[in-house]
């Protein structure tokens, strides 16, 4: 048997470095993205184009948006898919998006929702 084709039987240093660095990367990504749920803007992309940009703080009454056979429920505290004409309904199972950086997509229907912090808020503060 040629020993050259044997891949290490025991855990290597490389494994540990890989695991630790991936844990650090994912922690950093979470810390960077977690910044509350104030002044959120829900951006809805359809076929890769931004179709809606909704400031959630200005939503007083819940309403729905229909795009590409998908129905999205826009509420004061978040956005959720309520209907989609796709196979696995993963978009509906994702539930309600509430925090900045949250992303949700119905890939077969090419509808994507992203929550972003409202960048205009600070500029408005100066203008007032």
């Amino acid at each position: 048997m040629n020993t050259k084709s044997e891949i290490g039987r025991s855990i290597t240093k490389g494994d540990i470095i890989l695991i630790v660095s991936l844990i650090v990367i994912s922690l950093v990504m979470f810390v960077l993205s977690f910044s509350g749920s104030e002044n959120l803007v829900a951006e809805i992309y359809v076929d890769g184009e931004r179709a809606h940009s909704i400031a959630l703080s200005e939503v007083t009454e819940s309403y729905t948006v229909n795009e590409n056979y998908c129905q999205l429920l826009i509420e004061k505290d978040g956005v959720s898919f309520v209907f989609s004409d796709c196979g696995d309904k993963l978009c509906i199972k994702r539930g309600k998006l509430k925090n900045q950086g949250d992303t949700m997509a119905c890939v077969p229907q090419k509808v994507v929702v992203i929550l972003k912090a409202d960048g205009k808020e600070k500029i408005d503060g100066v203008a007032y």
Partner: protein
Amino acid sequence: MKTNKVSLLGIFGAVALVLSFLESMLIPDIPFLPVGAKPGLSNIITMYIAGTMGLPGAMYITLLKALFALITRGATGAFMSLGGGVLSTLCVCFFIKYQGRIFSWLGLGIIGAVMHNLGQLMAACVVSGTFALINYGKYLLIFALITGTVTGSVLLILMPRLRKFGGADYKNKN
């Protein structure tokens, strides 16, 4: 290609398809898991073939899985399966070339899982045309670490035992 390789690929291809079908039934909709994430049990087969037969065999399993996704889940599913499968197979085969000096099967499993998720996410970005979808990656990265550890550990335990029966190296056999 030798006859025994053809038949082995057929058997392992079937096992891979059954595993990916079973895991889609087994996974309940646990709320804190990232939506659409799967444990990737069939990647154990892909990695086993990558380790024993090399890139062509592993790529065959990957393409077979994509074809299965095309039949059962449609074009979007097939494209995402292909995106994840091809990227992870290429990466795992690349690292196997280093003959385990850098990573053991554990590390290879994690690389395979992370690359599979990355490839699928990139495929999802292409299909939906929205690059910002890459945001979702942070959930998938943590999940891939866990599932990759599981698949890698299975191979780490399995391979030395299979080697005793000659089931760990088909490259030098007729």
